[in-house]
């Protein structure tokens, strides 16, 4: 059995890695020229946010932060679907 204090030494480093990736993705969101780049970067940001939420919940040993994780993962697909419907409708006008 591995003690739970072992994972407390790994989670800040991992959270730092994912936060650095989120910062670089958000630079591309703010400088994107078209809607496709922004939506694709927001998808990647949401995936990183899911991993960060699970890491924070593991660090504080509480399961309550996990409530929002599965709806957040479903929002990725819904955002793509809504934006692509909007683009297809704008073409037909």
């Amino acid at each position, binding site marked *: *059995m*591995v*003690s*739970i204090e*072992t*994972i407390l030494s*790994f989670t800040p480093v*991992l959270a730092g*890695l*994912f936060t*650095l*990736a*989120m910062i*670089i*993705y958000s*630079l*591309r969101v703010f400088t994107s020229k*078209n*809607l*496709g*780049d922004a*939506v*694709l*970067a927001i*998808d*990647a940001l949401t*995936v*990183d946010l*899911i*991993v960060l939420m*699970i*890491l924070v*919940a*593991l660090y504080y*040993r509480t*399961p309550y932060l*996990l409530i929002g*994780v*599965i709806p957040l*993962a*479903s929002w*990725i*697909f819904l*955002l*793509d*679907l809504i*934006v*692509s*419907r909007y*683009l*297809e409708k*704008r*073409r037909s006008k």
Partner: protein
Amino acid sequence: MIDTILFYLGIGLLFIGGVMDIIASIGFFKFKDFYTRLHAATVGAIGGGFYPLLGVALAVMGLDVDLWFKAVFSGVSLITAAIIALGVPAGSHILARSVYRSREVEPAVIADRLREDLEGGGSN
């Protein structure tokens, strides 16, 4: 023994996921076109989301905690990993299709046969 193996396998998957996520974000920032950025976004979703969630599910199973804690953490991680592995490739695919068809971004190619077929008066 099996707990230690599971824990360090999960931590290894988490570190691989973090490094792949940083590589994907640098690629996402450096690539010039929307259609090349799709490759980096796939690396960021599968390498930066699917592998770390599997790693959390494996690492929690090796910890010295209660059974409900292991069940909640590994269950939520596995379900979210399944949703990401199914939803993100399908979502980026429909996004690429609608961006191409609505002329939001024109691909940098010499000859575009699909565009000719779509607008060539055929059965669209």
